[in-house]
Structure formats: structure tokens, C-alpha cells
């Protein structure tokens, strides 16, 4: 029950701004989670590969370049194609409100924007993973 949450943090696309994802990685680790950081410039296929191999509960994606409406759907498609769509996908970046709503409709569990406290992301992930695990038990 008290198994550690495993999360893959990834930077897709060409964007190299990694301050945010590194702060999130440190905060998740301090909160007792197992964090795997992919490094920069991962393709959607590389991200989903790593998620399956590492058997993670969730994938967190950070995009600050404005390419979020291309890259998030590409990761979602890849997850579906590989039968990995039970993994929770969430993310953060410079993402306007309208896009955020649309992405959440497509299946991104949550988008965090600048100023969001790391505590909020930690609470979100704990809750999402717990509810996923209780769903799995019922099945």
C-alpha cells in the first residue's frame, strides 16, 4: 500500500529550459517519490518507452516553448498506441488558459502554470495515484 510513487519527468521537443522540471524533481524526491528524469529533447516515443520500462505511475512533461498543442497530443497518442494510457500524464509550462482547458479535455490529467507551488503538484500526484490504484483493485 505504502509503495513509493514512481514518476518520470520529461522534456520533449527542442526546448532546453529545465529550471522548472529540476525544481519539481527535487521537490518530488523530498516528498519521498522515486523520480526518473529523462533529460532534454526526448521524442514522444522515447518518453513512453522510458515510462513503460521504468514502470512508472505517472509522466510529468514540461514545455516552455509554445509547442504544447503539438507535443502533449503526440505523447497521448503514443501512450494509446503502446497500451500505456493507464499511466497518468500531467505537465507544466507557459500554457495559456484556453490551451490548458483543451489539453485537460484531451486527457492530460493536470496542467500547472507559473507560480503553482510544488506542494500543489505533490498533493495532486498523491491523490491521482491513490485513486488509480484503488480503481485497479476494484477491477
Amino acid at each position, binding site marked *: 500500500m505504502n509503495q513509493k510513487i514512481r514518476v518520470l519527468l520529461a522534456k520533449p521537443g527542442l526546448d*532546453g529550459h529545465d529550471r522548472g522540471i529540476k525544481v519539481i524533481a527535487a521537490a518530488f524526491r523530498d516528498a519521498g517519490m522515486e523520480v526518473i528524469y529523462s533529460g532534454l529533447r526526448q521524442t514522444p516515443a522515447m518518453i513512453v518507452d522510458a515510462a513503460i520500462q521504468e514502470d512508472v505511475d505517472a509522466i510529468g512533461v514540461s514545455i516552455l516553448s509554445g509547442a504544447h498543442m503539438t507535443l502533449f497530443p503526440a505523447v497521448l497518442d503514443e501512450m494509446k498506441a503502446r497500451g500505456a494510457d493507464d499511466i497518468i500524464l500531467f505537465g507544466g509550462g507557459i500554457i495559456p488558459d484556453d490551451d490548458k482547458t483543451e489539453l485537460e479535455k484531451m486527457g492530460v490529467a493536470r496542467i500547472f502554470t507559473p507560480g503553482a507551488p510544488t506542494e500543489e503538484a505533490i498533493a495532486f500526484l498523491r491523490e491521482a495515484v491513490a485513486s488509480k490504484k484503488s480503481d485497479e483493485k476494484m477491477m
Partner: protein
Amino acid sequence: MFNKKFIDKLQGNLAKWNQEAEKTRQKKSMPRFFTISGTDIDELYTPASVKGADQDDYYDKNIGLPGEYPYTRGVHHTLYRTRLWTMRQFAGMGTPKQTHDRFKYILEQGGTGLSTAFDLPTLMGYDSDHPRSLGEVGKCGVAVDTLADMEIIFGDIDLSKVSTSMTINSPASMLLAMYLSVAEKQGVPFEKVRGTLQNDILKEYIAQKEFIFPPRPSIRLITDMMQFCTRHVPQWNTISISGYHIREAGATAVQELAFTLADGFCYVESAIEAGMDVDDFAPRLSHFFNAHSDFFEEIAKYRAARRIWARHMKEKYKAKNPKSWLLRFHTQTAGCSLTAQQPENNIVRVALQALSGVLGGTQSLHTNSMDETLALPSEKAALIALRTQQIIAYESGVANTVDPLAGSYFVEALTDKMEAEAEEYFAEIERRGGVLACIEEGFFQKELAQSAYRFQREIETDERKIVGVNDFVLENEEIEIPVLRIDHRVEKDQVAFVKKIKAERDNAAVHTSLQKLREVAQGDGNTFEAILECARVYGSVGEMCDVLREVWGEYVENQAALQAS
């Protein structure tokens, strides 16, 4: 500055003063007083706080006069009284045609300086039709694939009349080669071409992470280009040694100062090793710093930067031309300090940051727009940002006199402290084997990540207040700022255009020039000349970078080294 007797007497007075102050301190528990970088600040600064100020030569040695060594007070004798700082707003968007129209507008409004932002595929050396470029074309700057794009942007702008700044690093040589090819077609001799390339690859490994090749061949690309420009394009500023991105990635003010100048010294040493005379290239080096929110800390940082650069260039690198000692710099306000919450408040943040840059003696300034945590700036937000600079220049009165804060006990003490702390970093970098070794072992990257996390913790534990974020929050805030969007047709059009150019150009000539570039890269000839040849015949940024990727390999950050602490 002050004689010993005076300082001794002051120490006595201070002891008495402290007893009185202690009574007030006892009454109320006080929070910690520290800068945004985490440096503790004293309650009071007096002449006794300025170390060495009781020595006769203190003023001449450490402060001096503006326009004179060690340039603490500025690089010009008269500073803004003769010429205001250049208000250089960075722009670039969508297709080359859109950027061209924007530049024409700026020139029609009386501007003489252009500043170009490129999109991520261009910055990373991929053509618009490369699969990795999908979704990124024209998003955060203009897409340039071949000379054809550069001709659209600059073709009818007289390149002997404007100065152009190009924010590009890994493929900087390719973009300069294309720019020079446009000048050639206009009949403008290279000696008349003016501008600046960012071309600072070291800070890419440290902070912004837009690298392509490993550090050592990247440095060769830069020294080859410096050699070419020294001979043929003497008015070109070859490197803008940048702390801006280092700060944005989480550095403290001292880390920004120390790592940036260490990078600068690394370029100087590399060019000297490549056989160049320091006075031939050093006058064409410039710097680029961040203006963050801690007002006095920033001002002290700029003053310390000038003094450190002058001392090292003169004493360590033995430069004889005073122009080689000068640290000229551009400033941009801190993007990372802007908040998505109550974004209008950002106008005030930017104004204070810009003021610190001006009081620190900057040569040029970019003020950020209030909406940059939401998207690229809208026209209205960009206009307010420019107006902010004009209000500082024409209404505040701060430009009336040179370095008005000199002699402030606090500012001088802080300037000295930052210089001393930067020197400690230089010694540590040296101990670890130099800048390149520090990059490879992840020293800078780890220092930055730790500072960024410390800052975030301070906000979340309420030790630090950010207005609108962890205090003075508006519940159910509705953002009422219009957000700029880039049309997705930009990407389609650009992809179609580069395909057309690749089909129509003289492909045999492209092949030959790329082959030549490969041979030069494998040997030890000047890569810039080979790149210029490729650019002239419409070889693309992606094709040139691919050749160099094959010869030199691609750089991948060593995550294991970065995570082990």
C-alpha cells in the same frame, strides 16, 4: 577615503549606537533580512563597513573616475549625458516576411538597431522540414533555413546603415555567414557591416541548454569566426558573454557574475591559444546581464563586473589597449521574476529592475512585457515596456549624473563583497580544472539547480513574499490580458518554402561546399570560411549542422553526473 583616526572614532560611536539599537531590537522579533540571492544584509552601513577605506589609495584603486581604470563607475566619462542607453527591444516572429515587416516598421519609427529572435529549430540547427521541428517552427522567433530567408528579412534594408543583433549560439557562424552573404549581394563591404552575435556557447551548456556539438569543437567554431571577423568584419561584436540565461536558470547574483566572467575569460584564453593577440579581439567582446528584483544587489553586480573584467584583462591577460579592459554590457529585466498572477504588477517589477540596470551604467536595455509568463508579448504590452524605459530616461532624472550611487557605504561594501565572492568562484573553477571541466562534471549545473530549489523553498515556506503569488493573492482572479498566438499556417508555409528552395538551388554546388566544410572540420582549417561558402550557395542551417554533427558528434548532458551530489 577616510583616515584611520576618523574610522577609529566612528567604531567607538557605533558601539554606543548599537547599545541603543539593541533596545529596539529586543522589543520586536525581527525576520531575516537578506537579498533575493540569499545574502544577509546588515542593518547599517558606514565608512567602517568599506574594507580598506582608511587607506589613502582606496578610491583610486577601487573606484576611480568614470571612463577610467578600473571602470567601477562606468565605461564612459559622461555616460548618459552624451548618449542615452540604447533601447533595444528583442523581437522576431513567424515567417521571415513577418519579421521583415516588423523591422521596416522599427526603422521607419527612427530605430537604428535591430534585434533578432530565432525559432527553436533554427537555434538547434534543424531545418523547418525536419521531423524534430514539428510544432516549433516560427513559435518563439523567426525561422531561417537558407540564405533565401535572410534575403527576405534583410534584402531591402541597407546593411551598411543598421546594426543588427542576432540571438543565436550553436549555429551562430551559419547565421552570420548568411547575413554577410546578403551584404555581399547589396554590394556592402564587410568592413561596413555592424552588429552583434550572441555566440556564447558556454552558457548554453551551463544554463539555456541549446547546444549541438561538444564543448571543444564548439569553441573552435567560435575562435575561427573571431579570427575571420578580426580580419574582415572589424565592426562586428563577436560574442555577447551572457549571464542573463544563467540567472534565469536559477543562479544567485554572485553566481551570475562569476560564471559569466569565467566564461568570458575562457573565450579570451582560447583565442590567445589559437594564436590571436588579445588586443586584436578583446575590444569586440561585450556582455549581457540580467536585471533581477533586488535593487542594490544588481547595481553592485554591474559595478563589480566592470572592475573584475578590467583587472583581469589588464593584469592577467596583459591587454594594453584600454578598449580591451572595458566591460560594455546589455541588460534585460528578469523574465523569471514575472508572475502569471495579477500580471499588471509586472509593469512595476520591470520598472524597478530597469532602473537598477540604468543606475548600474548599462549600454543597452531590453524591458520585458508584463504578459511574458502567459505567451509572447502582445503589441500593447511591448509598448508599455518601451515606455517604461523612456520614463526612466526622460522623467526620473537618474540619467543626469554618472554613477550617482558611488560612495554609498552600502553600495561600495556590497560591490567589494561581490567581487571577493566572484574571485572565490574563479579559484574554485580553476581548482576543478577550468570552465570546460566544470561543465563536463556538472559543477555549474548543480550550483544553479540548488539555488533555484532554495529560492522555491523560501517562497513555499513563506520566508520570502512574492506579491500576488504567496501573499496579497486575489481569489478567483480573471486574467484580462490579450494573449498573442502564432498562426499554425506559419509552419506549413515555411516548410513548403524550404522544400522549394532545396529543389531549385544549384545542388551540385551545395554538395561540393558541404563536402569542403566536412574536410575543413576534420582538419584544422578555418571553418568559418567554409561555412560562408555553403551559405552563399543556399546550403541550409540544418545541412551545415548535420555535416558538423557527423564529424564532431552531438553533445548529450551526462545526467548521472548531474544527479550525483
